[in-house]
């Protein structure tokens, strides 16, 4: 039975091992030549048209154009083959369809700290396109599952019915390690693209370091950041990227990046709050720095998770900063009230009404004030 399991692992691994030539820039004839690839592309064209009519695209054309521009810079000769869409979605991720459409989640834009980090992710995704990873994975899955089907039958006929499970396990492991291999490849190709575009070489390692920091801050029963589940990460990858960077320098373009995304951060954070992964979100907020907006959101997060003392501290920091949103006073009021500090709560609510006289919830706040008096 062990021989059988070894034999099929070998078979499956060899089925997986076939590597395809890169797709050449601008060359769709290559795709037409492969009938399975053509089928996948046709299916993806449908998915792309569904995305375009889904209402998920971010309406800010300037932002769309900016991200497209960064993608083009790292895609270089593949620029004309790639369409980039920023979609309204919380979470740390971007994805590449085999026919060249890339989706960038707003949750990714909230997390990357500068243009170079964005470019690192986009370069990685372009590499998946260039190396035709979807097709490779489809072919290896097809070959492996076919092999498993026949082997399971052979095992059953030969009286080794139980071997079927082993065979399946071996297949899953083979496919998993295969997808890790693709990620490694995309890492190193993406890194080359990043450096070729004169971006800060450290950026790629920084992205993974930040993703891992979020994961570490999560409760054990929570799913890891999406980026990590679709791009199996490891300390090894991080080490590799950090070693590659090795003080090569390059531009970060933090200012340019900020100009494009800053005005959206509030809505993006609100979307993340809705997800309830406070530990991980705290890591993100801390990275955004000690400004009033980040402090306000930390207050919201702590108040919702019942950490009243921390909420109070965060709101206090928020209300003294010039860029704090008016709602920070409301949050402060609610927190103080829940602690029984009524007169302070009253002052905070009054302050809210003064700062935001047009707010939609003024009637509610007036009712609170009446009750407190």
């Amino acid at each position, binding site marked *: 039975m062990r021989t059988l399991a070894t034999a099929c692992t070998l078979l499956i691994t060899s089925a997986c091992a076939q590597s395809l030539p890169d797709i050449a820039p601008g060359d769709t004839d290559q795709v037409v030549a492969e009938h399975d690839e053509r089928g996948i592309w046709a299916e993806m064209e449908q998915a792309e*048209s569904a*995305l*375009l009519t889904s209402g998920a695209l971010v309406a800010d054309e300037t932002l769309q154009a900016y991200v497209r521009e960064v993608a083009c810079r790292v895609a270089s000769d593949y620029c004309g083959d790639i369409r980039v869409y920023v979609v309204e979605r919380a979470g740390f991720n971007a994805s590449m369809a085999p026919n060249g459409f890339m*989706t960038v989640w707003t949750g990714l834009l909230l997390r990357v700290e500068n243009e170079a980090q964005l470019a690192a992710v986009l370069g990685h995704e372009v590499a998946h396109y260039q190396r035709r990873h979807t097709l490779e994975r489809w072919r290896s899955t097809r070959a492996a599952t076919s092999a498993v*089907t026949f082997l399971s*039958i052979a095992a059953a006929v030969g009286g080794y019915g139980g071997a079927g499970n082993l065979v399946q396990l071996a297949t899953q492991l083979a496919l998993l390690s295969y997808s890790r291999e693709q990620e490694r490849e995309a890492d190193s190709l993406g890194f080359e693209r990043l450096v070729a575009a004169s971006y800060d070489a450290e950026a790629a390692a920084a992205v993974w370091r930040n993703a891992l920091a979020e994961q570490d801050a999560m409760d054990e029963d929570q799913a890891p950041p999406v980026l990590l589940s679709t791009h199996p990460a490891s300390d090894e990858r991080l080490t590799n990227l950090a070693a590659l960077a090795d003080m090569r320098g390059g531009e970060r373009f933090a200012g340019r990046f900020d100009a494009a995304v800053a005005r959206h951060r509030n809505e993006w954070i609100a979307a993340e709050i809705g997800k309830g992964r406070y530990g991980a979100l705290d890591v993100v907020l801390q990275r955004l720095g000690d400004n009033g907006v980040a402090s306000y959101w930390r207050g919201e997060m702590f108040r919702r998770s019942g950490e009243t003392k921390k909420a109070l501290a965060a709101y206090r920091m928020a209300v003294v900063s010039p860029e704090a949103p008016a709602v920070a006073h409301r949050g402060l009021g609610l927190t103080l009230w829940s602690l029984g500090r009524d007169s302070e709560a009253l002052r905070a609510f009054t302050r809210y009404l003064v700062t935001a006289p047009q707010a939609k919830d003024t009637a509610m706040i007036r009712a609170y004030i009446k009750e407190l008096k």
Partner: protein
Amino acid sequence: MRAGTSLGFLLLMLAACVRTDPLLPELEFARSAETVSVLVMPTNIALYEITVAGLLEPNAEWTETARQNIATALGEHFAKHAANVLAYAPPQNSLLRHHPEHQQLVKLHDAVGSAILFHGQLPSLALPTKPVLDYTLGPGIAVLREDYEADYALFLTFRDSFSSSGRVALMVIGAALGAVVQGGQQFGFISLVDLNDGRIIWFNSLNSSVGDPRQEKGARETTRRLLDGLPL
């Protein structure tokens, strides 16, 4: 990227269900004296090859051939019944292959048609508020009325799959061992929509393990079954 998954899943699930009688709406459908014209919307068609293990591999060539064959067969049917057929073409001012609002209607029909099938196939899922076929694509249909001179629009969603040679081998081995290995399967649903108000005035579904729209003859047969009972 998994846009088609829920639809595909529903169709697969329905395939496993016991087939009940097709839904027969209480038709308020009456042919006027003049010739009726039908706009055939972009069909949502996909054909797949079944791998040995039962995975579905999309096949663009088959899909395109089936799309053309079915379009031809639809045209033939309506010509025979003296109805005017308009094949969908995007409005002249549109740069896109399919106008986005028209595309939305095709997606809406997928969703509504899936709901009709879902609630119509099993008595336990039947909706008490809908004893007869009473579904609509809503007032949004007006965009079609404005852009095309037609009385009705026909929407079709269709999937078909064919065994690869490996799958056929597996079926033979399976049969010898007394196991049933599932082969190709075709599913689809089709609606006739009144362009005045968006109501679905006729609906039919198909679920079959025979038929091959990759061939002209097979496409004619599949189309005939899809249009079975159409009062046009």
